C-alpha cells in the first residue's frame, strides 16, 4: 500500500495485511491462466458462428424464454386464454366466410378443423417472426450494457411462442375428437414439423431483427409482409386448389410444405415428401444465411440500437 497521502490508521492497516495474506492464499487456489481466456479483436468481414460461445450461454436462452413466457400474459384478465382466442376466433370467421359462404374445399375433413390445422402453425410462425423481428430493438438496454451472444434474443422470442402453440394445440385435439377424426401413426411427424416451423421462424426473425436495428422500416414492413405471407400459404385453402402449372411457385414458399405436412400428420393423409423436402432445404439454407448475416451485423448493434 502506498503511504504518501492517505494515512492508514494502524488497526485498519493490520486488517489490510490480513486481507492481503488471504488474497495470496486465494490466488494460489485459483491459478491465473497462462493464455488469455478472451481475446478481443476487430472482426474480419466474414466471421465464424462461434457456436462454443453460444453453448456457454445456453442457460441464458432458457431464462430469457422463461421471462417472455411468464411476462406475456401478466396483468391480462384472460391470461393464457389469449393463446387460444387468437387462432380459434380466426378459425370461426374463416369457417363462416370461406368454408360456408365461399365454399372453399377442405379435402374430406370439416372446414373448421382443416382451417384450424393451418392456423395453428401459422399463428405460431407469424407471432414468432413478429416478436423476434422486434426483439433486438426492444432489448436495446441489454445490448448496450452487457455482453452475450445476441442470437439468444430472437431465439428466446421464437421459443416462447412454443408455449402458446402447445396451448392452442389442445383445441385442435378437442376439435378432432368432436368430429371423430382418427389419429394415425402420421402424428409422429408432428415434432419434426414443429421443429421445422420454429427453425424457419428463427431464420426469418433473426434476419429481420438484425435489419431492424439498422433500418426501422422493418417494424412497419413486418406486419404487412406477414399478412401477405398468410394468403400466399395454404391456410384458408388447400394447395390442391392452385392450378398444377403454378404449384412449383407455391412450393418455393417453405410454409407450403410445412403446413400441408401438419394436415397430413393430423388427418392421416399421405405426406408430400418432395414438398416437405424442399421446405426443409429452404429453411436450413435461410437459417445458415441469416446466422452469418446476423453475426456480421452483431458487432455494430450496440452502436446503432
Amino acid at each position, binding site marked *: 500500500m502506498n503511504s504518501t497521502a492517505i494515512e492508514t490508521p494502524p488497526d485498519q492497516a493490520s486488517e489490510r495485511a490480513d486481507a492481503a495474506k488471504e488474497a495470496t492464499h486465494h490466488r494460489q487456489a485459483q491459478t491465473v491462466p497462462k493464455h488469455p481466456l*478472451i481475446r*478481443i479483436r476487430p472482426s474480419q468481414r466474414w466471421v465464424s458462428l462461434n457456436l462454443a460461445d453460444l453453448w456457454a450461454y445456453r442457460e441464458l436462452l432458457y*431464462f430469457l424464454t422463461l421471462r417472455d413466457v411468464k411476462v406475456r400474459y401478466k396483468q391480462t384478465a384472460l391470461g393464457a386464454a389469449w393463446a387460444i382466442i387468437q387462432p380459434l376466433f380466426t378459425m370461426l370467421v374463416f369457417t363462416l366466410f370461406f368454408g360456408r359462404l365461399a365454399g372453399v374445399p377442405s379435402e374430406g375433413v370439416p372446414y373448421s378443423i382443416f382451417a384450424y390445422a393451418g392456423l395453428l402453425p401459422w399463428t405460431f410462425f407469424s407471432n414468432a417472426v413478429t416478436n423476434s423481428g422486434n426483439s433486438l430493438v426492444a432489448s436495446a438496454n441489454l445490448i448496450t450494457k452487457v*455482453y452475450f451472444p445476441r442470437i439468444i434474443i430472437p431465439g428466446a422470442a421464437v421459443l416462447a411462442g412454443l408455449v402458446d402453440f402447445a396451448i392452442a394445440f389442445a383445441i385442435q385435439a378437442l376439435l378432432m375428437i368432436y368430429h371423430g377424426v382418427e389419429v394415425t401413426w402420421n402424428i409422429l411427424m408432428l415434432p419434426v414439423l414443429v421443429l421445422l416451423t420454429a427453425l424457419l421462424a428463427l431464420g426469418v426473425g433473426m434476419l429481420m431483427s438484425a435489419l431492424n436495428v439498422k433500418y426501422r422500416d422493418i417494424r412497419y414492413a413486418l406486419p404487412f409482409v406477414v399478412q401477405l405471407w398468410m394468403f400466399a400459404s395454404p391456410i384458408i385453402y388447400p394447395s390442391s386448389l392452385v392450378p398444377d402449372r403454378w404449384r412449383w411457385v407455391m412450393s418455393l414458399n417453405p410454409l407450403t410444405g410445412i403446413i400441408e405436412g401438419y394436415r397430413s400428420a393430423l388427418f392421416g393423409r399421405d405426406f408430400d415428401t418432395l414438398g416437405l423436402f424442399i421446405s426443409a432445404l429452404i429453411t436450413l439454407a435461410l437459417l445458415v444465411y441469416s446466422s452469418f448475416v446476423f453475426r456480421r451485423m452483431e458487432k455494430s448493434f450496440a452502436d446503432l440500437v
Partner: protein
Amino acid sequence: MDTAIKVYGIGKQYHIGASQAHYETLRESLAGAIGGALKRLRRSRRSEDDTIWALKDVNFDVAAGEVVGIIGRNGAGKSTLLKVISRITEPTRGGVDLYGRVASLLEVGTGFHPELTGRENIYLNGAILGMNKAEIARKFDEIVAFAEVERFLDTPVKRFSSGMYTRLAFAVAAHMESEIMLVDEVLAVGDAEFQKRCLGKMQEVGSEGRTVLFVSHSMPMILRLCNRVILLAQGEVAADGSPQEVIRRYLHSDVGSPAERTWPSIELAPGDSVARLRAVRVLDERGEVSESIDIRKPVSIEVEYWNLQQPLRPTISMHLINEDGITLFVTNDWNNRGWWNTPRAPGLVRAICKIPGNFLAEGRLFLLVAVCSYNPDCVHAIERDAVSFQIVDRSEGDGVRGVYSAEWPGAVRPMLDWEVAQEPNGGELS
C-alpha cells in the same frame, strides 16, 4: 506479477451520423449509398469527416489484483473503453486480452423485469451477467442477505422501493465469481448507506485478488478504492500512475491549479437556459486563489454564474466532500436572507461563502457546486469536483490538535469552547 488485462492500441471510431441519429431508414441509407458512390467518384474524403475517434491508441496492462480507477472529463472515452473491454462494442483497431472471467457492471439492474418477482429476477439477471444456474443457486442466500429483501422475494420488483431495487441489482452483480470486474459509475445511484455497503463489497472484491477497473467521477471514491489511476483525455491515456499524482494532474488540467475552475465561454460552461457557471475558486485569508489552506485560517469559496432568465430565483448549493466520500455539509446562498428576497435581474452573479478557520479537518476536500431553483425543483448547473483543496495542519501547538502529533480522527476538527477550572473547594484527594 501476473497480467489480468492487456490493452493494446485500441481505437474506436464512431460515425457521427450513426451515433447521433441512432438509426437510419432504408431510404436514407440508399440515398447515402448513392451519394457516397458519387462522392467517391469525385474522390471526396467525406467519410473521414463524418467520423470521430472516441478512443485512439489506448495502451495499458493491468496486473492481477490491481484496482484501477479510470477518470476523465465527459466525452474522454471512459465508458467507450469499458464497453470495448466488456465486449459490448467492438474496437475498430487494436485488441484486448483478458486473463479470466469478466463481470461487467455498467448499469445496476440490467435486464431486471418489473413484472417478475425478486427471486425470478435474481436468476434472470445472474444469467444475463454470465452466471450459470448452479452458481446462482449456490449464491442465492448470500445475495438475498446482502440485498436485505428476504421478505419480498416473491413480490414483483415493480413494487419494490427504489432502494430495495438497487440493492438487489447490485447484490447479484457483486456475487458473480469472476477474476475481472468492470464497474461504471454505478455507485452514483442509491443512498449513502447503500454506497457505503457497495464500497465495502468492492474492497472485498479487491482483497480476494480480483482485478477491478472502475470508472468514476467521484475523486474521493477513486482515492479510497484504487491503487492506480488512469486519466483519459480525448480518447488517449493522458496519465497513468498513483491516485494522488494522477488526480492532481486531472484537476490541474484546465487551469493552473485545482483550486480554480473557470469556463471561458458561456456555451461550454455547465448549465442550461436558466443559469450557467462561470468560475469557482478557493480563496485563502488574503483573497488569493490557494490550493493549500492552513487549518487555523478561514477559507472562502467564490462562485460566479450567469443568470440568464428573470423570473426564477436560482440558488447556489455547495457540497463539501472529504476523501472518504463523506459529505461534510451542504450550504446554500439563501442563508443570506437579504439576497434571497431580492428580485433577480439577468447577468453575472458572484457569491462568496466563508468557512471559518479551526473547523475543517486535515486532508483533501472536494467541492460540488450546483445552481438550482425550487418550486419546481430543478438543477440548472452542476459540477462535481469543481475545485479541490488541501487543509494542512502545521502542528504548531495552537491548533485543535495542540501538541499531539499522531493520528487525529474526525471528519471535522472544530475549535470548541471548553470551560475548565480547578474546583476551589473539595479538592482533597482521598
